[in-house]
């Protein structure tokens, strides 16, 4: 029992760390394209790690209803496919409209 609680805590801590790093990246980076780099990658993995930790918690503490984690597994797959697609769509729209990328030595935008 202690082992399961420890694993769930590990997954939750890892997921929270990546989510916070994604938000800090949103504030620190100097340009729109680089901010999408930070959130598109870190946010996806952070949320997925939190959800995987909660699936493990459910399978060991509430083993009477084994069909509920199927919803969470589907949510994990959906986030892995949908978040990069939304990031790519936003970046393509910005490129077509004409937002200029940032080079080393420019000022913050």
């Amino acid at each position, binding site marked *: 029992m202690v082992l399961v609680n420890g694993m769930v805590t590990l997954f939750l801590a890892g997921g929270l*760390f*990546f989510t916070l*790093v994604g938000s*800090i*990246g949103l504030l*620190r*980076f100097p*340009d729109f*394209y*680089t901010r*999408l*780099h*930070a959130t*598109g*990658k*870190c946010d*996806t*993995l952070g949320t997925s790690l939190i959800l995987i930790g909660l699936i493990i918690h459910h399978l060991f503490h509430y083993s009477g*209803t084994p*069909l*509920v984690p*199927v*919803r969470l597994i*589907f949510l994990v797959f959906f986030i*892995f*496919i949908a978040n*990069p*697609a939304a*990031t*790519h769509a936003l*970046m*393509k729209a910005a*490129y077509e409209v004409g937002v200029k*990328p*940032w*080079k*080393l030595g420019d000022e913050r935008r």
Partner: protein
Amino acid sequence: MEIRGRAKMNRGEKTFGILITFGILFLFWILLSGLFDVFHLIAGVICSGIVTLMSHDLMVKGKDEKFIGKSLRLFWYIPWELWQIVLANIDVAYRVLHPKMPIDPLLIEFETPLRSDFSLVTLANSITLTPGTITISVEPEKGTFRVHAIAKEPADALLVDQTMQRKVAEVFFVEWSGTDQPTKP
């Protein structure tokens, strides 16, 4: 709204599409509801049937060859992909939390011999989930990819090494000969 005409498919491919769509929708109904009495199963059959009639030609565009082989190779490709995702996030975390923030963005273009819809989408998703690169646009005519890279090393890993393109081409049974593409600033 641009509505293209329905794709011309013969009866065999249409039946295959209808069966696969109905099967997947009914499987989701059973898994997500968890109730197995007669009323809910019949309600599931009716709802899945109505949705299948309206949209069966959106999901399966005809039967392409080597379907089982491609699915098996796709399952083989996923663990390597997951390892790349973890590496990517550690890389981004390093760049965000470093006090000097070592980034140096640049734009790249290259060509691939992949032509089908599903393979282009798989490669674009993989490029977005690997360290340091995001796809900007894809052209299905010649398979051109335009990619925004955050520093020099991930851009080199994509242009010079070309490991990821080789692996995706191997999943979809496409011959890949390494080509040398110039970077576009």
